[in-house]
């Protein structure tokens, strides 16, 4: 097996043996269970005349609630990615774990890319697995399905991957705690900056709008989150948001349009830049 895949396998193996995966699976099952119960309750809500809510209305409420639940999932994924990626390289340098391995015929780029690859696989498995479970539960409870489930998984996973990539860059130079904290703060700041951008759109203030745009370029997590939101919005919501004009765009839990192609292209470039920076930073680090 080439070294890059050996390091990817080791990363997955470590997460599994340290029971990180088990913890995430148990927590996810708990959330899915509770949310299924909660969604099911929507179908039992009655109006003042004692009749049940019509299916369209149940779907509408479910779609909005699903966006909030998904925000939690994306948060769990982003936080986990930052916490795991922060010490990914630095902890092994500090402990000496990497020393004997780096004395083997192994390129440092193989270490960095292998670790990224291993965590990327875990991020995708978590995003796809938790989405499959949650959407199945929601469908069972209310009969609702979001319009673009595949895109939803891809956007949520890409958000986690972005935090993982940022954490990895930091991990090549900073201690695990420092790198993890910086990645988390950056993620929150990017989200808040996205909200500021929304307010700018609502107020038609270009300076505030630029804050949102620039933050999406520096750390595309919020931009990707909006993609996930768009993938969950039924047509009726989109129509209402568009009818509301700029005010409809001033909400971090709504998206009127899918992320532009130029932004998605930038995300690909951004990932390549982060990986290149990680490799360069680790290659030039003295151990």
């Amino acid at each position, binding site marked *: *097996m080439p*070294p890059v895949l*050996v390091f990817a396998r*080791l990363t997955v*193996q*470590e997460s599994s*043996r*340290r029971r990180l995966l088990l913890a995430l699976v148990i927590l996810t099952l708990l959330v899915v269970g509770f949310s299924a119960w909660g969604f099911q309750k929507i179908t039992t809500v009655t109006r003042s005349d004692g009749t049940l809510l019509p299916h369209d209305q149940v779907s509408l409420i479910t779609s909005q609630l699903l966006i909030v639940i998904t925000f939690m999932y994306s948060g769990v994924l982003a936080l986990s990615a930052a916490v795991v990626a922060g010490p990914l390289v630095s902890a092994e340098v500090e*402990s*000496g*774990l990497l*020393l*004997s*391995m*780096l*004395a*083997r*015929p*192994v*390129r440092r780029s193989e270490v960095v890319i292998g670790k990224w690859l291993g965590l990327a696989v875990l991020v995708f498995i978590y995003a796809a697995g938790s989405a499959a479970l949650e959407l199945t539960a929601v469908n069972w409870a209310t009969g609702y399905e979001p319009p673009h489930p595949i895109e939803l998984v891809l956007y949520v996973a890409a958000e986690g991957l972005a935090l993982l990539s940022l954490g990895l860059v930091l991990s090549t130079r900073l201690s695990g705690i420092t790198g993890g904290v910086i990645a988390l703060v950056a993620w929150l700041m990017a989200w808040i900056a996205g909200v500021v951008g929304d307010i700018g759109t609502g107020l038609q203030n270009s300076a505030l709008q630029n804050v949102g745009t620039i933050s999406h370029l520096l750390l595309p997590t919020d931009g990707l989150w909006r993609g996930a939101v768009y993938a969950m919005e039924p047509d009726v919501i989109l129509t209402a948001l568009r009818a509301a004009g700029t005010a409809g765009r001033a909400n971090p839990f709504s998206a009127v349009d899918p992320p532009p192609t130029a932004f998605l292209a930038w995300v690909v470039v951004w990932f390549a830049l982060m990986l290149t920076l990680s490799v360069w930073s680790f290659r030039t680090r*003295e*151990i």
Partner: protein
Amino acid sequence: MAAAAPAIHTVDLTKRFGGTVALSGLSMTVPRGEIFGFLGPNGAGKTTSVKLLLGLLKPTSGEAWLLGEPIGDLGTRRRIGYLPELFRYQGWLDAREVLALHCELAPLPRSIWKEEIAAALDTVGLSERADDRVSTFSKGMQQRLGLAAALVGKPELVFLDEPTSALDPVGRHDVREIIRGLAARGTAVFLNSHLLSEVEQVCDRVAVVDHGRVIASGTMDELLSGTAVKVRVSGLDDSALTKLAAFGPLDDEGEHLTFTKLDIERVPELVSTIVALGGRVYEVAPRHQTLEDRFLQLLHEEER
């Protein structure tokens, strides 16, 4: 360089960290199949040298070759084993899996892994713990595991950085036997250590490094050709001890004074001087210099 190239050859290898000189102009040659002891006090530049040779650090200037190839050459690392001073292995793997990982990275053909792993575990005495998680190992056992990892693939050159720091006397004895075994099969061993008796017992050749500079090097016989004299004495004050510095480097251990390099012909003169200074001599014991005598003498000369 050809196959007969020395195991290690360095020319003016220098490493600076900012304004601190960690290693200054290291020039040395370690022949194939020899056990080479690299000695020095803490912070002398020993580990820096090993890391430079392994490509973990980049030299500020100078050149070096391992097994005839320039340092940093990826292919050469297939033929090298390394036990770091700061040894740590994946606690969530078992011992066999750690060694399999090193076989994979070495890389060795999968068909010989089982045999290599079994042999390495047997050599370091960990066969019975092969399937236990490394996290359950004591520090000494982890160091043994590190040694086993350095041995897989029958390397031509092995770097051992303080290989017995976590071991008990039995473990130290075992490691000496392993090192002798390596040399017997033609493997060169670069032994970094500040445990002088350990080095004295196994090394063919040593270099003493201090403040980033090699202050002496040669075979054991060349280095330890002098005589040391241990005197049991009382009644000497500090000014008297200062005057005795004329007899060469002095290791003052209270009642016992060791003149780490003193010609045997000067012993009567030394005794009469001590008596003249008011000292009472109970015992005079000349002996061949030990590595510790020589080491202290070299550091003493270095300070002056």
